[in-house]
């Protein structure tokens, strides 16, 4: 299981939990698992998110590996100018 830290307002959509655990070996597993386990997160996931894995931010690479002890933080989708 991978522990995932949610941002504050997102926790309200995950039964109030700031940290949730899902079975995931890749970024794609993680996003799918979050949506299945916590349907309240689906709206935000569909709007797009970025994910920090061990301090590096990923936007799109589904098959980025995630270790069980990785630090995983869900972020609002990053935008730049």
């Amino acid at each position: 299981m991978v522990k995932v830290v949610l941002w504050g307002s997102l926790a309200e959509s995950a039964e109030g939990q700031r940290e949730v655990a899902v079975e995931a070996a890749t970024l794609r597993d993680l996003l799918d698992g979050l949506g299945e386990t916590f349907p309240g997160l689906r709206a935000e996931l569909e709007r797009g998110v970025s994910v920090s894995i061990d301090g590096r931010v990923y936007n799109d690479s589904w098959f980025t590996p995630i270790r069980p002890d990785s630090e995983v933080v869900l972020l609002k989708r990053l935008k730049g100018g």
Partner: protein
Amino acid sequence: MALDDSKKVKNFKVVGTRPNRPDGIDKVTGRARFGADMVAPGMLTGRILRSPHAHARILRIDASKAEALPGVKAVVTRADFGDVPDHVADVMDNCMAGDKALYDGHAVAAIAASSAAVARKALKLIEVDYEVLPHVTDVDEAMKPGAPVLHEGRQQETVPSGMSGNVIARSEFGHGDIEAGLAKADRVVERTYRTGATHQGYIEPHACLATMSADGQGDLWVCTQGHYMVRNVCAAILGLEQGQLRVTASEIGGGFGGKTVVFLEPVALMLAKKSGRPVKMVMSRSEVLRATGPTASTSIDVKIGMTKEGRITAAFAELRYQGGAYPGSPVDMGAMSAFAPYDLENVKTVGWDVVTNRPKAAAYRAPGAPMAAYAVESAIDELAKGFGLDPLAVRLMNGADEGTKASYGPTYPAIGLKATLEAAHRHPHWTAPLGENQGRGVACGFWFNFGGDTCVSLNVTPDGTVTVSEGNPDIGGSRASMTMMAAEELGIPYDQVRTIIADTGSLGQNEVTDGSRVTFAVGLATIEAARAAKREMCRRAAMIWGIDEEAVEWEDGAARPAGPNAGKFPPMTIKEIAAVASNTGGPIAGHHEVTAEGAGVSFATHMVDVEVDPETGATKILRYTVFQDAGRAVHPSYVEGQFQGGAVQGIGWALNEEYIYGEDGILQNAGFLDYRIPVASDLPMIDTVILEIPNPGHPYGVRGVGETSIVPPLAAVANAVSAAAGVRMTRLPMSPPRVLAAMQAAKG
């Protein structure tokens, strides 16, 4: 791709030097072709009719008189576009109003005519019946329950019930216990700060030339930060297959985020489709200011507690950003970045995305972050000075470092914030004497940076010179930096490589030039493409020598036999290998296609001296120094230019620039005479200090540098003006009347 720690890449020969820019001659001689410079046989002139109202229902559009005018070849309204996919619905509505005009300047109809004179005359013949509606342009007013509502049903599930329909989304970040932290503070500062909406101020207005053939194939020449984005969005709006629309990026006279979206392009294509002729559209400066994408104006509450030793015990900010007429202000980025430079036990930010009757906000260099940094850094400065503490030392005491849990969640890898603070502390600027009515300000800033879809194709020509094709418009020196990284990797001189910007038909998908991504991501792909070409050239040399390709290595622009059993052969240079490429398997190239990740965050510290005229309230910038981490400065002159440009734009944001709306909701200063950006004669030379803390996610250690430099200056200038004026300034811009009024109010 991880930082390459080998000895070879540490001994750079090209990276870190300052060769002439490859586009320099064309630009100083006027040969460079910008958006408005392209012509086509039979070309028509396109013009837009814009709403004179801030908020109005469009009851009827009658273009029959315009259509009957000789020389008018096509008229387009929203009805011509039909239904569009959901993901481009707001873009469509912003390019051409549907049921309602949502801001002063909103496009209502468009004309293609044989000349500009005919087009102007025809616009006056289009009859539009409006039902004028109440409007709101201020973020705090728009959030009130009784405010005029722009859209129904757009509120996200994150917004508590009972709030105005203009409040689109709420987000919250942070960790710890704010109240417990505040209880440990010796002093708490709580203030509200406001910033005006500013424009990116790019010199070149938006422009494009569109053609659509009868068989559905389209071509677009356009000034943009992302021609692949233009292709994809326009194809979706016009119902085209992406492969049928080829988009070529012109040279670009600035963008800074404002050219990451479309405004004219779908309209130009529709006019071209209806008229059967090429259509060129060029915005006036007034149109640029009224109807493109400025940044958000904001209202921000900050509450920070600090011990008398300078340790921050709790930090809270509530940020309200109006992003214009459609959802999507950069408040999330502001809320995530507000306290990112600091190592805080108790931190929380709340962001509100609000719509108003203003043009839809677009990105502007580190979108959302400068305003948040202004509020936070002002409060920290006030606390530090209140305790008589050195404001740089306070920032160092609280500064984030490797292993810090960032306020937005992740734990930082190696970062450069403290290096910028220490460099600032050592710099002679910090201890230089100040005169009467003068003040010094410092502030820190942070930006995320990112990568994204990237393609590079590197071709070795028959004479052994090299061309690099990239898919991002050269907005900040990418042709120079890609040329340098290719030359570095191949071991050949800079002048043996030329980089071009390919059209959308020539490479795969490329992310927009944004997020400070290009030197990082395209550079990464260029290095990998060069490595692929090197592998192929080693293979060709191995064939010629009759040895295993593993026994060949590349060094200093040539293949060389390596290892004890490779044999003794003279090196084959790139020119020698290229000359016989047709005999050894064909042309030689290297490609790399990647979704680049791991961009690496960036920090900066700015220091500024100002003098405030006590009689007029006018502020003069006396001295300015930027300290920023670049990871690796590929071409230091361009890096310095990015630092200086961000500082100057931030100075304008702090002192002069602001969208001013009248009671009628009409923009009052839609021109550069009344919307005053700083020019060279207003400013001293901006000094720069480049720090190089390598990004572990790039083979040469490169970090993006294009955005971070605009994050600290609003606060740095505000802190300096507050020091000089003797009163804390909490609203931007700090125009002379505002500063004078604050000084007089402080005197009682």
